[in-house]
């Protein structure tokens, strides 16, 4: 199937005669009918998505333009962008943004490197592959709150089986615990996706490179990496989007103490703690904009790679 902007159709597909109408009327009608029934088929899903995502997002935008504090019901009213001004001028917003980026940045970097390492090792595994895959998925399958508690206990003196240091009593050691938890949980996910990506790199290509005298590093840089680049980018995007919204680990382990509060925790504090729906929604909308902006930037910058991945999936 060729698409606009794509590469020329590979040999074997029937080129459309120049100047000819796109198909006979009967075919066209059939195609239109099929398109219509396709719309009917996806309509329930689209409507459900609109109801459970678009509506809350739009409602949050609407709330963020109001002074709306449940404790002062009489003062409710439209205030334009006042809430955004209050949020963006508050030092705590920028501190929390910093904490969010520290956690997300370091955690994702470690996840990628460690995940890649595991994937490369597993690729060579001959026996017990299934068992290893299953074991690898365990941390990913464990509920985040449970994992967060386990790591919290490990970092608490007297309860710990690791060390007698109060890890969660200071800022940077708290970050270390939070990041360790995030890494422990998400690395398997990264490893398995990258492993799937590696499977798409033909073994002969690597063998040829080896025969031609390429070193291990050269084979990695010039054969493996380009081969899994699209998968790598998708994994990276998933992990970044997930990590920007980090909530449960921090909520359980420090509840934002010692400068570890993240943006999602900040929004939660305004909404559930202070009942200030206006301010809280403004923080949520900004967090949403940050995620959406990241995703869009990704899609624009790496358009070619992602298209290549989509093509590969079609095959």
């Amino acid at each position, binding site marked *: 199937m060729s698409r606009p902007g794509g590469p020329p159709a590979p040999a074997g597909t029937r080129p459309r005669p120049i100047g000819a109408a796109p198909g006979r009327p009967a075919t066209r009608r059939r195609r239109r009918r099929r398109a219509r029934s396709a719309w009917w088929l996806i309509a329930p899903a689209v409507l459900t998505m609109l109801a459970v995502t678009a509506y809350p997002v739009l409602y949050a935008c609407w709330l963020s333009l109001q002074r709306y504090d449940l404790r002062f019901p009489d003062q409710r009213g439209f205030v334009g962008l006042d809430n955004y001004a209050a949020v963006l001028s508050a030092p705590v917003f920028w501190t929390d943004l910093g904490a969010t980026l520290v956690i997300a940045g370091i955690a994702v970097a470690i996840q990628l490197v460690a995940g890649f390492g595991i994937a490369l090792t597993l690729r060579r595994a001959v026996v017990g592959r299934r068992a290893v895959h299953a074991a690898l998925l365990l941390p990913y399958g464990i509920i985040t709150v449970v994992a967060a508690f386990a790591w919290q206990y490990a970092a608490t003196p007297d309860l710990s089986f690791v060390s007698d240091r109060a890890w969660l009593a*200071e800022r940077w050691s708290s970050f270390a615990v939070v990041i360790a938890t995030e890494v422990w949980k998400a690395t398997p996910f990264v490893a398995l996706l990258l492993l799937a990506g590696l499977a798409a790199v033909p073994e002969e290509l690597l063998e040829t490179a080896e025969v031609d005298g390429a070193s291990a590093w050269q084979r990695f840089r010039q054969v493996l990496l380009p081969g899994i680049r699209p998968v790598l980018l998708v994994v990276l995007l998933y992990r970044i989007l997930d990590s920007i919204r980090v909530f449960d680990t921090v909520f359980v382990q420090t509840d934002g103490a010692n400068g570890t509060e993240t943006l999602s925790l900040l929004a939660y504090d305004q909404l559930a703690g202070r009942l200030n729906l206006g301010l809280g929604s403004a923080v949520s909308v900004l967090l949403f904009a940050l995620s959406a902006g990241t995703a869009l930037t990704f899609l624009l910058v790496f358009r070619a790679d992602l298209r290549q991945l989509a093509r590969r999936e079609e095959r």
Partner: protein
Amino acid sequence: MPRFRAALLAVLAAAPLLVACGEDGGPVTLGWYVGQESSGAYREIARRCTDASAGRYAIRLEQLPRSADAQREALVRRLAARDRTVDLIGLDVIWTAEFAGAGWLRPWDAERATAVSRGVLAGPLATATYRGRLWAVPFTSNTQLLWYRKSRVPAPPPTWDRLIDTAELLPAGQGTFAVQGGRYEGYTAWVAALLASAGTGLVADPEDPDRARADLAPGPAARALGVVSRLARSPVAGSGLSVATETESSDLVLSGAAALTVAYPTLYAAARADAPDLLADLGWARYPAVLAGVPSRPPLGGLNLGVSSYSRHPGPAFDAAACLRSAAHQQLAAVRGGLPPTLELVYDVPAVRAQFPFAVLLRESIAAAAPRPATPAWSDVSLAVQQVLHPPASVDPERAVPELRRRIDDALASQALL
């Protein structure tokens, strides 16, 4: 909000009809939402009131999470959604103004208010009052005492400073002074008690949203915060101060590491259950003072019972609340659950004295305790305190006071990000 008002009117108009229906067709069910209580005292009290109502109502106990913050969130979610299954609310003493301000509580009418106020200790009664009306009825109270190991500190001095001096002289590993320095309401309660003991407070005119402002008289406030800063920097605070809640303090006492702690009487119950050897060595005294010669103002906790605005059965709900907090039931809560009463006379009951060997000190401390300010924006004020003054070791008293004043004023306006 015309729709809201219409809904409220509809509820109000329908309420008597529904009550009438209930009365005709057997007992109405009243949902009592309250934090978990592990001894079963609440369940037993609810059962007794159900029996005593002679078929008018049946109380269904709905247990909320253990932590006060989690309880509040669960309740707020229900009440913001106008959940009509909530009839009776177990309110932490610091929520009254907030829930009343949001329109979630029905005030007690004058006749009922007079009846249920009789014989109630002044502090607990003040926590149920906001802008001159009674919004809930005091059920249990609570305050902190100073607990000490008699073998290590034979005669505890009355002020924080001298207590820290004493602890610093003890051998390492035995001299911890366990305080709740984690980033949560318990830390705010400590700060508020220190400020009150030093003769100032967090908020002036808390009940009037137009005039409410930060209090914090500079001299006394700096003295109070000086205690936080000194203890946090002393080795006797222990390394986990900035994450310590009641659980951690209690663990430090029961494990033998702590020589001193400030804690609610649940500590004594925990020692009786888990460390009976330690019990004989556990002494108690009045909560420490900030200034020599000026008696301390301990923190005031406890639980009040309110009736939800969205209840379909307000009449039976008020009656049930009055029943739940009766002297006999407060005695049951004290003896079985270790929860201090709010009715003064209950402290004289021999069974209560046996449960609390320190009953006289407890009643005296509750009478002297300083309630936290009754402002609807209390959770904001508390958050501001935690943001400016946490971690405890970062507190610089002279610099923290003006910063805290600014942040509390922001919090009271409820328009700034916190």
